[in-house]
């Protein structure tokens, strides 16, 4: 689970004040807010890419507020997927595992598992730069899930997809949740996404998480 306590983030004139919320283990939370409300700023702070001014971030009871991104063990899928374009799909999926010095056998088994879950087995040896938007999102999701993170952060993963791909990706996210049970925080400004996926909905408005709908 993740618990955020009195988090303050300052970025020039913009600030997020006194943000507090928690997501129980295995839950799928959706954070909603208008464009420019600070959703991406908040998610970047959670995964350690942006410094926080004050407050605490607790992951499974461990205070990770001062930890670098690598030490937090959080799976992160940015809005643009940010696929490593010089690598193949397989190398993208293997990335976190090779950094962790897993054996070739363990890496191979995990890649097979992920490619089956995400339906990207046929893409494994393709150069990542040739992927479509939907394929790139699947690979980015697999790359983030590869090392069994306790928390998955998704930054508007559906925003750039056409209607058909969007529907397929929502089904995929439901399936991933069912199979992995990973605690997830998904950013969106789309109510339909929230209705279909969320156990919890948080609203970010005027620099604060102001509303929580159970």
């Amino acid at each position: 689970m993740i618990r955020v306590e009195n988090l303050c983030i300052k970025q020039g004139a913009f600030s997020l004040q006194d943000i507090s919320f928690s997501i129980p283990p295995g839950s799928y939370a959706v954070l909603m807010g208008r464009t420019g409300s600070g959703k991406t700023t908040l998610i970047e702070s959670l995964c350690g890419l942006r410094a926080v001014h004050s407050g605490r971030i607790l992951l499974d009871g461990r205070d990770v507020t001062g930890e670098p991104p690598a030490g937090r063990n959080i799976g992160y899928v940015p809005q643009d997927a940010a696929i490593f374009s010089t690598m193949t799909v397989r190398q993208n999926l293997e990335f976190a595992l090779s950094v962790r010095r897993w054996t070739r056998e363990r890496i191979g088994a995990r890649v097979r598992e992920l490619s089956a879950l995400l339906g990207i087995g046929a893409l494994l040896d393709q150069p990542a730069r040739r992927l479509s938007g939907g394929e790139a999102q699947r690979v980015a999701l697999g790359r983030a899930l590869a090392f069994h993170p306790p928390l998955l952060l998704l930054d508007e993963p559906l925003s750039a997809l056409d209607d058909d791909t969007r529907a397929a990706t929502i089904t995929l996210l439901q399936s991933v949740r069912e199979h992995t049970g990973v605690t997830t925080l998904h950013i969106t400004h789309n109510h339909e996404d929230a209705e279909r996926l969320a156990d919890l909905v948080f609203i970010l408005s005027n620099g604060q998480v102001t509303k929580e709908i159970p």
Partner: protein
Amino acid sequence: MSTSSPPHRPRADWPFLCGMGLLAGTYVVLIVGMIWADLTFTTPHFLAKALASPDIQFSIRLSLMTCTASTVLSLLVAIPAGYLMSRFSFPGKKLADAIMDIPIVLPPLVIGLSLLILFQMPVGKAIERFIPFTYAVPGVILAQFAVACAFAVRTMLVTFDQISPRGEQVAMTLGCNRAGAFWRVALPEARRGVLTAATLAWARSLGEFGPILVFAGATRMRTEVLPTTVFLELSVGNIEAAVAVSLLMIVFALAVLTMARAFGLRTSRERVL
């Protein structure tokens, strides 16, 4: 009742386009004319005779060796400089950026003179106890590096600016530290920029003359590179040999230009030159 105005008929575009084409074409004609003049001035016989000269063969070897060395040194500096200036804000960044542009705008002779004076100072003299630079081959490399590196830095800065930092950020969430993200993600994505920077640095080094003349001298079979050969042959009235070496440099330059174009120089050159 409304009245409709008669359809507007703009003037034809061809006078404008012809005027622009005429002005731009004069430069193309000038360049082609220069190369054509060189080609018609000499004969294969003169060319073969010049290339058989031991002095010129030494000059070709030294040019290829020093240009390669200065290119490697330029990349060693330009890749970290471009990366740091593209990814981080730090005190004095604008000043550092401006300082690294100085060799691009300084007259070449001034660079040579400044190097010469630097190596007459206590620090320079101390360095020369270990590696002789003044009027020596390392001086040729340093003079080439002093100018070529500025172009390589500019190319690498543009390259890293064009690469989103998001990939490196994702790599850090996946377990890399900053160095791991650089080696595994940023540098492979910058490979075309690195090749472009290398070709630019090599081409600049090949054409460098002023700083080498002042700092490393123009001694035959010692610090003589191809531009020095052209200068020395001209000074003794051997124009055929000077033209033959010039043609050789044109061939090298065209080969480098072709490589640079293939690696995407067109995009990065917008800010470089």
